[in-house]
């Protein structure tokens, strides 16, 4: 918050200077209503997912595990390798597209309902409310000097916050290091040094962001606040106060007719300001601090109901609608974003579904162009790398094709690779020089599973021989 004051005595006249005033703690008033219910549901579902997921198992292994040292990500039944980095890119593209789509549709839906900062702050505020009481009680407590009661309340609140934060940190690390062993170790204070560090670090971040910084994260850290205006147009649903209906504002008796008194529907109760977690007055218009939580909508609707007026003085509406122009939600921009988003998601899903969990890499031995064997055949040596990305071990068959008369020699004809293992082996290909048309020929290596599984990979390689003497 800033105050302005005039500085005194400079030769060139008065200068207005903004002085920095320390931030005043914001006490969002408790609110009930449709959107509050939706937010609470969001908190339950998202936090529930976050805390429960690492405890679920799939085939003896944690269902969701990001094994960084082994460079494998286990998500449900699938294993993702560094080679699958492409899917991460696709997912990022899908995330960006959904950002544009949802923002163009209804502004900061993410911020108000799904963002981890909002979700955890809601949980922390709920704990605070349970311990310290409602808004006026909290404000009164903070103004008091330190007493035994105040100390007891504050200490319990921070204690519960800290335990909750540590548990959050533990869960976070549990996505990277199997959570069952981790929890047992943690309770015995026997976690490894770096795991301990990250649990504490992430716990501290949770405590700091949700308990202390709160709306300041949204105001100062979040880039969404800054560029939301670029993604919103006059047909975007934004949370807005209807000044045409509400102004001029003023208190009046419930039984009175406001129009007779020359008043709008707004009774200036300021409850919309009291419930706001970022402390703004929505009647001043959409501001960048507004996270779109719709608490003001619920609050105002409640007051309107009590006054016997129609709801919706503050509501999700479009700028066009407020200015009395026709408005359309389903417009080209929305349709295009939706279509591309759907295409990317469908493409990613299909791509993952039809993924062949097998990698074949063929690299020609570069130490020599070719070698002539005792029988006069031309030989090339290749280094073959086979990666079995499937859940179980497989036996494979390797063959060459595309080059007439080529024969493949392996040290060991039996190719067996365990799940998640890499097999590297040299192979030789021999051809009668009579059959070689050019110096350089193309051939294909075919790797297929011969244990009944439908797995196959084909890789192209070059075969180098002597210049034809014909």
């Amino acid at each position, binding site marked *: 918050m*800033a105050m302005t004051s005039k*500085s*005194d*005595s*400079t030769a060139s006249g008065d*200068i207005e*200077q*903004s*002085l*920095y005033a320390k*931030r005043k703690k914001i006490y969002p008033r408790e609110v009930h209503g449709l959107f509050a219910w939706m937010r609470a549901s969001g908190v339950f579902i998202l936090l529930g997912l976050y805390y429960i997921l690492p405890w679920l198992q799939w085939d003896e292994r944690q269902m969701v595990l990001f094994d*960084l*040292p082994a460079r494998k990500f286990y998500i449900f039944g699938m294993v993702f390798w*560094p080679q699958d980095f492409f899917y991460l890119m696709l997912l990022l593209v899908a995330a960006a597209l959904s950002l544009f789509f949802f923002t163009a549709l209804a502004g900061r839906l993410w911020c108000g309902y799904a963002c981890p900062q909002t979700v955890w702050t809601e949980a922390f505020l709920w704990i605070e409310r349970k311990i310290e009481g409602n808004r006026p009680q909290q404000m009164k407590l903070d103004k008091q000097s330190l007493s035994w009661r105040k100390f007891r309340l504050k200490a319990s609140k921070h204690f519960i916050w800290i335990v909750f934060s540590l548990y959050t940190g533990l869960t976070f690390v549990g996505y990277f290091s199997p959570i069952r062993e981790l929890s047992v170790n943690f309770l015995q204070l026997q976690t*490894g*040094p*770096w*795991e301990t*560090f*990250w649990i504490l670090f992430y716990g501290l971040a949770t405590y700091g962001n949700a308990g202390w*910084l709160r709306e*300041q994260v949204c*105001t*100062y*850290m979040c880039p969404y606040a800054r560029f939301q205006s670029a993604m919103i147009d006059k047909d975007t649903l934004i949370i807005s106060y209807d000044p045409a209906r509400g102004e001029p504002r003023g208190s009046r008796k419930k039984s009175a007719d406001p129009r007779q008194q020359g008043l709008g529907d707004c009774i200036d109760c300021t409850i919309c300001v009291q419930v706001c977690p970022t402390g703004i007055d929505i009647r001043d218009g959409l501001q960048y601090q507004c996270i779109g939580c719709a608490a003001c909508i619920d609050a105002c609707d409640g007051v309107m109901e009590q006054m016997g007026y129609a709801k919706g003085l503050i509501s999700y509406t479009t700028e066009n609608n407020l200015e009395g122009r026709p408005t359309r939600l389903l417009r080209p921009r929305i349709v295009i974003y939706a279509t591309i988003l759907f295409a990317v998601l469908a493409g990613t899903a299909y791509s993952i579904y039809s993924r062949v969990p097998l990698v074949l890499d063929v690299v020609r031995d570069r130490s020599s162009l070719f070698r002539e064997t005792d029988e006069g055949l031309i030989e090339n040596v290749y280094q073959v790398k086979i990666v079995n990305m499937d859940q179980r071990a497989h036996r494979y068959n390797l063959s060459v094709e595309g080059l007439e008369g080529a024969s493949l020699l392996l040290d060991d004809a039996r190719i067996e690779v365990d799940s998640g293992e890499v097999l590297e082996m040299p192979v030789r290909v021999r051809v009668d020089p009579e059959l070689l048309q050019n110096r350089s020929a193309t051939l294909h290596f075919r790797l297929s599973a011969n244990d009944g599984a439908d797995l196959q990979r084909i890789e192209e390689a070059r075969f180098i021989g002597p210049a034809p003497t014909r």
Partner: protein
Amino acid sequence: MNEIPVIQRVIAILWPSFITAGIATVLFTTAFDPEVIFVDYDVSRLGVYSITFFVFWLLGAVTAMTTCFFLRPCSAGKRQGSDD
């Protein structure tokens, strides 16, 4: 700089450098296998990742602080209540 809250200035330095450090750590450890680079040191893999991350964060933060320093107005400016 007086009108910008302290917390905003602190965040402007620590938060972008945090993000960059994350990205840099991913790229660095993808390109260079920690077990090969740091084979002479007795640190676990997770330790290498962590230290790499914090070194990058520190570098980024120092850069950001330098940028903030150079963003200060060049002229001495009128200070409140100063007599010139």
